[in-house]
C-alpha cells in the first residue's frame, strides 16, 4: 500500500505522525548522528501510550519507518510481551508495514531493555526506548549543570558512581544502564539494557538510535562507532555470567532469565531473547531442561 493510499483509506498519515513532526524528529536524528552520544532535544509529542512505555522509541520509529521496512519489536528480549505486541500492531495498522519476529529479517528493530543476541548488520537500525537519557543524573540533579558538564567533557564525577559501587559491594555492581563513552567524547546512558549487551554496541555495523519521550531527547550511535564501558584499571568492565546454560536451547553465550518454576524453589534459566532461542531450537539444539 502506498503512503498516499494509506492516508486516504484511514484518515491518518502514514505511520501515525504528521509530516511536520516527522521532519522535526528526523532533523533531531540527523544531528544526533552527527554528534555521537550527544542528547538532542526534540519536541516530543503525545503518543497513544503512556510515558514509560516507549513513547520516545515509537516516535523515532514512526519518523524513520518506510513502507518497505520490516519491523521487529522486542521487550526484555521477547517478541510476545504486551509492550512488544502492541507497538508492533500499532505500526502494522498505522503504516501497513510488514512485521517479523526474526532478527535477521528485520530492517528496523525497536527494543526495550535488550540488544538482540544475533549480530546486527549494516542494513539494520536499532531503536532503543529510553526512560532516563542523562547518565549524570544520579550525581547531578540540575539539567543546566549536566549540560555544561557534557559540553566541557567534565566527567570525573562519573567514576564516583563506580567507585561507590566497589566501595559498597566490592565490585562494580551496576548491572544495567551501565554508562559508556561514545567515540571518545560523550558519556551516554545506553538505556536500561543489561551490561551484558554493552559490548554489542561497540563498533556495531547497525545504526543505533535512542528516543526518550518524556525527557524529550534523541541520541545516536552511528555505525562502527567505538563505545567504551567505563571502568577502573584494577576493576575492569566485565559482563554477567551464568553457571547454567539455557534449559530450552542449551545456549551458553546468551543473556539468561531465571524463572522460578514452583514454590519448592525449582528454577530454570532460559534465553531472554526469544527469537534467538527459537532459532537455535529449530536448528536442532536442545537444553537439559524439557521446558515443561
Amino acid at each position, binding site marked *: 500500500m502506498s503512503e498516499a493510499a494509506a492516508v486516504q483509506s484511514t484518515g491518518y498519515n502514514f505511520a501515525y505522525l504528521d509530516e511536520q513532526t516527522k521532519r522535526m524528529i528526523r532533523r533531531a536524528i540527523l544531528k544526533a548522528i552527527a554528534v555521537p552520544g550527544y542528547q538532542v532535544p526534540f519536541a516530543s509529542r503525545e503518543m497513544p501510550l503512556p510515558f514509560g512505555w516507549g513513547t520516545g522509541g515509537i516516535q523515532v520509529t514512526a519518523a524513520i519507518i518506510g513502507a518497505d521496512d520490516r519491523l521487529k519489536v522486542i521487550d526484555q528480549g521477547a517478541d510476545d510481551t504486551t509492550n512488544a505486541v502492541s507497538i508492533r500492531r500499532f505500526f502494522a495498522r498505522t503504516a501497513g508495514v510488514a512485521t517479523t519476529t526474526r532478527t535477521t529479517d528485520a530492517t528496523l528493530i525497536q527494543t526495550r531493555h535488550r540488544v538482540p543476541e544475533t549480530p546486527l548488520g549494516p542494513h539494520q537500525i536499532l531503536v532503543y526506548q529510553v526512560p532516563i537519557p542523562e547518565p549524570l543524573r544520579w*550525581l547531578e540533579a540540575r539539567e543546566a549543570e549536566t549540560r*555544561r558538564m557534557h559540553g*566541557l*567533557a*567534565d*566527567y*570525573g*564525577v562519573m*567514576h*564516583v*558512581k563506580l*567507585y*561507590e559501587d*566497589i*566501595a*559498597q559491594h566490592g565490585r562494580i555492581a551496576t548491572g544495567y544502564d551501565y554508562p559508556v563513552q561514545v567515540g571518545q567524547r560523550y558519556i551516554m546512558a545506553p538505556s536500561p539494557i543489561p551490561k551484558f549487551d554493552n559490548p554489542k554496541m561497540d563498533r556495531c555495523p547497525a545504526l543505533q538510535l535512542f528516543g526518550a519521550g518524556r525527557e524529550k531527547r534523541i541520541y545516536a550511535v552511528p555505525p562502527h562507532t567505538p563505545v567504551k564501558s567505563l*571502568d*577502573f*584499571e*584494577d*576493576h575492569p568492565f566485565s559482563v554477567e555470567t551464568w553457571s547454567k546454560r539455557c534449559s530450552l536451547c542449551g545456549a551458553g553465550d546468551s543473556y539468561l532469565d531465571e524463572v522460578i518454576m514452583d514454590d519448592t524453589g525449582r528454577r530454570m534459566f532460559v534465553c531472554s531473547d526469544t527469537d534467538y532461542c527459537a532459532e537455535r531450537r529449530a536448528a536442532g539444539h536442545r537444553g537439559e531442561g524439557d521446558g515443561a
Partner: protein
Amino acid sequence: MRTPEAARVDPSPATETDPPLLTADGVTRWYGHRLGCRDVAFMLWPGEVLGIVGESGSGKTTLLDCLSGRLSPTAGHVVYRGEDGDAVDIFALPESRRRLLQRTEWGIVRQNPRDGLRMGVSAGANIGERLMAAGWRHYGDIRGSADEWLQRVEIDGDRIDDRPVTFSGGMQQRLQIARNLVTRPRLVFMDEPTGGLDVSVQARLLDLLRGLVAEFGLAAVIVTHDLAVVRLLAHRLMVMQGGAVVESGLTDQVLDDPQHPYTQLLVSSVLQA
C-alpha cells in the same frame, strides 16, 4: 607603609622579588543597584595566607566568589599565575580551563560543608572525586589516597565508606578540606572554614589548617568574621566594610594598631574570655 585609604595590601618583603600568585585589580561586583564589593585590589604571593574580615554583608563572600572564578565581576581583573608560570586573567579563560584550574590547582572550602561535599556518596568517594576528575583510574590507588587524607584530617580510616551525613559538623568540614587538598592545590579559598563549629572543634580545625598550610606551602584566601581565626592563620589582613576594603596590612599590625574607625570597633568588640 600602611595607609587605610588605599585598598592595597603591601607585598611582604620576603617574597617581593617573586611574581605574585594571584593579582586582583579593581574587582567590583554590582547586583543590579546593590553593591557586592567595590574596587578591591591586592596581590597574593605563593605560600601566603590572606585573611578577609568584615561584618556580615560587607561583601566578603562576593569578593571570594569573584576571586575563585565562580562569579564574574562587573569590573576588574583577577590574574592567576599557574603552575606553568603563565599569568592568565581567569575571566578571559574558556570555562573548561577555569574549571580545570578550580579542580586541580585551586581548592574551594565552602562555609557550609553540605555545599562543598557530595552528601549522597561515601567519604572516600568525596575525596577521590578530584583524583578521578584528574584522570586517576586505579581504584586501589584512589582508595589509598583517600585513606591517607582521612588520617591527615584526623578522621578514622574505618569511616571511609560512611556517608558525610553520618559525620558531625566538624568532621564534615575536615572532610571538605581533605577533598580539596588531595590534589595538592597551590591556592585555597576558604569561606568561614570554622563557621558553625563549637570552640574546641574550631581550635582543632585551625591547628590542622595551620599545619597543612605550612606543610604544603599553600597560599590561601580566608574569609571570616572571626578575628581569632585570622590572628592564627593569616599573614596579612584586609578589613572590609560596605563592599570596600577600609584597611589592610600585616595581621598583627592591623589587629594591634587599628587605624580605621571600623577596624577599631571590630577589634574592640571581641569578647575577652
